[in-house]
């Protein structure tokens, strides 16, 4: 009982990071994330080959890709490029989509869901009907129109994903916030004179963390794959730029003859999502003191 520190309630708990480091699985998750980020940032220096170079010896004489071997650790793809190098470069795109775009959509979804759930009356009705509208919105169509009008780019896919992906989380958080907003402690905060912003961010949001973690981490996997679909329709990264999603997407029909082309990037996606999930789970437990048992 040495340090009885009063932390000004900036974050609900002090030393979150320190406590995170005490959990084995969370540390594993952090390491994986760090490695992936490192690979993405320093890709040009660590790739064994130029990811876009189609090696003559990268294909068999019949034109089949090579399975993992000494020269190409992860094998080659259908045009004879080194898969390992492409996976490393692909981390860039996939991180931007899975983490940043997905993150933005989680933010938007949370903001809309929490606001609509907390306020009653027209604010809530308008926001939720807008959410319904967006849910029924033909996103693929928007993608195609954007593809035809604009120069395809990562930014556009990211924007489309952020734009369409927030609706689910908004709807789920809306329901949860509605019940949270009725809880007594929220009223108690109001009675203290706490502002709406403070209540929403400091007292409602932390209770939604577990739901948000579920959505945000599963969202990593789904958005990385969604990026591939959107790119396929022409709005995203264009060949030869690699992303984990489009490596899978391009090669999925070949998964019986060249399984490495589907399973290696698939594994990368699962690893990324899982790593965030481990950290997210730990974070949730840390933020929810009622979850703590014998440690």
């Amino acid at each position, binding site marked *: 009982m040495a340090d009885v520190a*009063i932390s*000004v*309630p900036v974050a609900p708990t002090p030393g979150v990071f320190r406590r995170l480091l005490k959990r084995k699985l969370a540390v594993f998750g952090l390491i994986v994330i760090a490695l992936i980020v490192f690979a993405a940032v320093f890709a040009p220096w660590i790739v064994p080959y130029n990811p876009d170079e189609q090696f003559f010896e990268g294909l068999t004489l019949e034109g089949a890709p090579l399975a993992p071997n000494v020269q190409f650790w992860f094998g080659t793809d259908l045009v004879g490029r080194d898969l390992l190098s492409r996976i490393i470069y692909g981390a860039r795109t996939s991180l931007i989509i899975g983490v940043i775009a997905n993150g933005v959509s989680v933010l938007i979804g949370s903001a809309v869901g929490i606001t609509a759930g907390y306020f009653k009356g027209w604010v809530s009705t308008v926001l939720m009907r807008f959410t319904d509208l967006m849910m029924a919105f033909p996103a693929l169509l928007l993608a195609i129109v954007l593809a035809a009008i604009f120069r395809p780019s990562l930014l556009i896919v990211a924007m489309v994903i952020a734009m369409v992906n927030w609706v689910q989380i908004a709807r789920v958080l809306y329901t949860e916030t509605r019940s949270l907003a009725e809880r007594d402690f929220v009223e108690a*905060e109001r*009675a203290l*004179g706490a*502002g709406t912003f403070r209540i929403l961010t400091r*007292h409602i949001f932390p209770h939604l963390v577990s739901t948000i973690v579920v959505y945000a981490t599963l969202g990593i996997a789904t958005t990385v794959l969604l990026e591939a679909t959107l790119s396929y329709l022409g709005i995203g990264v264009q060949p030869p730029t690699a992303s984990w999603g489009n490596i899978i997407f391009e090669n999925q029909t070949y998964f019986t003859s060249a399984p490495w082309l589907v399973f290696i990037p698939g594994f990368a996606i699962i690893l990324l999502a899982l790593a965030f999930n481990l950290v997210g789970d730990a974070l949730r437990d840390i933020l929810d003191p009622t979850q*703590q*048992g014998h440690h």
Partner: protein
Amino acid sequence: MTTTHKTSSEPLLSVRDLVTQVATPMGAKTVVDGLSFDLMRGETLCIAGESGSGKSMTALSLIQLLPKPMARVASGLALFKGRDVFALDDEGLRKLRGKEIGMIFQEPMTSLNPVLTIGRQLVEAITAQRPMSHAEAMAEALRLLEQVQISDAARRLSQYPHELSGGMRQRVMIAIALSQGPDILIADEPTTALDVTVQAQILSLIRHLQKEHGTAVIMITHDMGVVAEMADHVLVMKNGKAVEYGTVRDIFEKPGAPYTQMLLEAVPTLGEMHGIDTPKRAKPIAAVPASAATEAAARTDGPLVEVRDLTVRFDIKGGILQRPVSRVHAVEGLSFEIAKGETLSLVGESGCGKSTTGKALMNLIPWTGSIRVKGQETSGLGRRAMKPILRDVQMVFQDPYASLDPRYRVGDLVAEPLVIHGLAKGSELKDRVEYLFRRVGLSPDQINRYPHEFSGGQRQRISIARALSLSPKVIIADESVSALDVSIQAQVLDLLQDIQNETGIAYLFISHDMAVVEQISHRVAVMYMGQFVEVGTRRQIFENPRHSYTRQLLSAVPVPDPRRERRLYDAAAREIKSPIRPLGYQPVYNQLTDIGDRHLVAAA
């Protein structure tokens, strides 16, 4: 059935050296420490003791339902009919629960499954270990509900818990606990949240049923009135240990342990203040009688809070356009004032609008009429404009656990008001929080714990500390001491009064405990169905109650005197009326007549 208890020589349950521990970040903490007692068939054992002394933990240990994975029975023996409860496997425990030991939990509001009908939850308990047809079980359920005096029992069977009032839910819980005719009924604070009239009904009901079935009861309570009314034997606990065990008469008449003596001394008794003008601890301010003093203050400064025609109605909406279809007339045309340094108590039965009045003063719900705080009208003020006013008016909410954000450390929760209003930071903030903790009788080293790690009473003190942190001019205290054991209750009441003496703070004190109200109030307002039926000084109300409803409230208060004859069970108890009215309803206002010296009474 005879009225005398047939006790065989063999105890039904004997507990030996029970040790229960909870896990904390600092390691295991023993919360029940070497407890031993015997329970005879048909007798009532009351476990009393200060809040946080391990009463609930004891009960939960006996039925093996401690919160997992935090808590566990570390050692001990609980022999029930010759079997050790702690050694039973899952199946054995399942057979034990319900059929042999029934339990009513401390939190009645959350103990029923919200998505199942009352009927289903009852039938399920009835058929748990006794196969019978659904129709038979339904008939049995109906019989049980009628037995616990729920009006309109047949209809209730198909209702859901949230459609029932708190008192009704508590009675459903009792019906469930009794449904399998257990040998032992454990009741953990079964009446804390209930107003006196309902409390009286439930206590007499338990006694009545006990007589009929010969059930042994372990009753956990901090209310010595309840102990006196119910117990055969009493176990007094402190810090997880038993400090005294004896018959109820022995305990009340010749308490051995100093703690027990202290506990009994602290018990407020109704009528104890006969003939005294000021609240119990109020220093007689100079020569002036308190009432005159406050009146003088009121005249010079004007009242601190001035309420005129306060009306709160909740619309019940429906239809395609979501237009109101009917209304809850929660509060109708209340007018009152609170002067500096004055305590106004608000009493009345559950659902009469007490909390609603408090919330209206905080501007937490829409209301009409006029409320002035220090002369400033709060009607129509936005959240921002209310903020400075909230520095002067604070509220302690009725349910302390629910009103504390479970994700925050209690220290942060107490510090939060100061941070919101920008009143302190850094070490100053820390000092202030520690000071507040001490002030409400908590140790500052509990600052880093979370609300769920505290017992019911400790949480209530945290809420009080929170309200005090801003040094407001008025505190609305909604049932703020109801969950506290008498010693702490006395401490807190003393604290409230000391602060009042020091700073001239005013209280709007909402309570169902008439004895407490008698001790603390300058004036008392009795509320019924959203309106006042009687308003006057404490002496006027307690020594000269004029309205029949006021008298009814007073007579329902349990008296901490075991020799007093226990009240009989009144099968024809009155149900609470619904305040829901059709849209065009014109309320009939009570005409309050001054029968002298500002003692207002409504025509009966």
